[in-house]
């Protein structure tokens, strides 16, 4: 074995060792690395009432109630992961992307009766990038309602141009044929 191949094997061995050490560490701390807990996890194992947790999920369509207490706007909405729902109460101004059907992350505390008081609400964006006109056309043609979930498969709209979408929006009886 030459010195070069010995050095190569040594480098490989070090990388494998370091890689597996990192992998083990990350998998051990996996529950701390996740950014948020799902509503079903919070329901199944409620965290201590004084512990700040992050709750992530989709805002249930039709669940958003807005009130004003004094001068502060208060929003009440349900967050779901499809298996369980948690009602979140938040005092303050919601981010621009907040809407029904949007994924959000609420930071706050869960009380034993199941209510969640958020001190901060972040909106999560998904991997879908769609022009405004295309979204409007899909909504008008009844192919997608953003309040009830993710956008349809990209193959059905990604080649739809803004001009086509405008035409669709102008005449809803003339449906897009892709």
């Amino acid at each position, binding site marked *: 074995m030459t010195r070069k191949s010995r050095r190569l094997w040594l*480098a490989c061995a070090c990388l494998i060792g370091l890689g597996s050490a990192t992998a083990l560490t990350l998998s051990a701390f996996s529950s701390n690395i996740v950014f948020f807990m799902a509503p079903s996890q919070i329901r199944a194992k409620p965290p201590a009432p004084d512990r700040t947790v992050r709750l992530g999920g989709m805002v249930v369509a039709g669940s958003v109630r807005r009130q004003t207490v004094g001068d502060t706007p208060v929003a009440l909405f349900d967050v779901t992961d499809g298996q369980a729902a948690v009602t979140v109460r938040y005092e303050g101004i919601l981010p621009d992307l907040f809407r029904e059907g949007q994924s959000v*992350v609420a930071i706050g505390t869960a009380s034993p009766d199941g209510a969640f008081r958020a001190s901060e609400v972040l909106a*999560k964006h998904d991997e879908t*990038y*769609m022009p405004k006109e295309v979204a409007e056309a899909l909504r008008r043609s009844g192919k997608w309602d953003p309040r009830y979930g993710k956008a349809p498969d990209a193959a059905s709209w990604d080649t739809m141009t803004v001009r086509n979408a405008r035409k669709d929006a102008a005449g809803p009886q003339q449906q897009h044929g892709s």
Partner: protein
Amino acid sequence: MNATHSLVARTGTFFHRYANPGRFLRLGARLQPWLTWPALMLSVTGIIWGLFFSPADWQQGDSVRIMYVHVPAAWLASSGYAGLAVCSLLSLVWRHPLADLAAVEIGPVGAAITAVCLATGSLWGKPMWGTWWVWDARLTSVLVLFFLYLGHIALIRAFDEPQRGYRAAAILGLAGAIDLPIIKFSVQWWNTLHQPDSITLTGAPTMSTAMLWPLLVCTLGFTLGFAAIVVARLRAAVMESRIRAALSARRGRGGTVAGDAHGRDVPDGAVA
């Protein structure tokens, strides 16, 4: 063992063809215009296309245009570091002299593009997510990558004797490559605030083609630009080391010019 032996030897021979600085300088001079001009043209085209002629997103509005800088910067932050890791391996195993110089030159460029990625991401995060920064797995692992770049830049220049710096920085560069798969898969392994990849090798992109095309043009332009800057810096570094060698040789001989090939590289004004 025989097969690996010959593989190691052959890889070494392949890369050592360009260990000759003269050969690299000739190749670099030929390559440079083919990198610089397409990089400029594609980047300018892509940016103008993205900023003015691509549609606004249905939720993000015009903020989506930050993507045309952020995504290429993120791609180059990772692939630049992959290049650094390859240089580190070449340096540690084959003692390739040009790989050391390349590692010196890739570091600052990679750190700069990683800073661009972090800054544009933060600017996008405030209006969209509602926060400048969160400690989720994707953002944190990219910040670690930025610190790895900074550490590499500092370490490779930290020693009076350059060879020791090259060795230490190569170990850091290779060990830091562990961060690359963590960055890539962080959005799949853990739930993060950062969205998953829109463009994958296996599936169709979840992005309108009207946005995808300017993004691809920007990415290609930025990548060629990154390569152009690194090649230009590397050529300058090779010339600098030749000048240093020539100067020290001249000093050794008491003021006579050392060799015609070296003498041509030394302008008279550069001596002072």
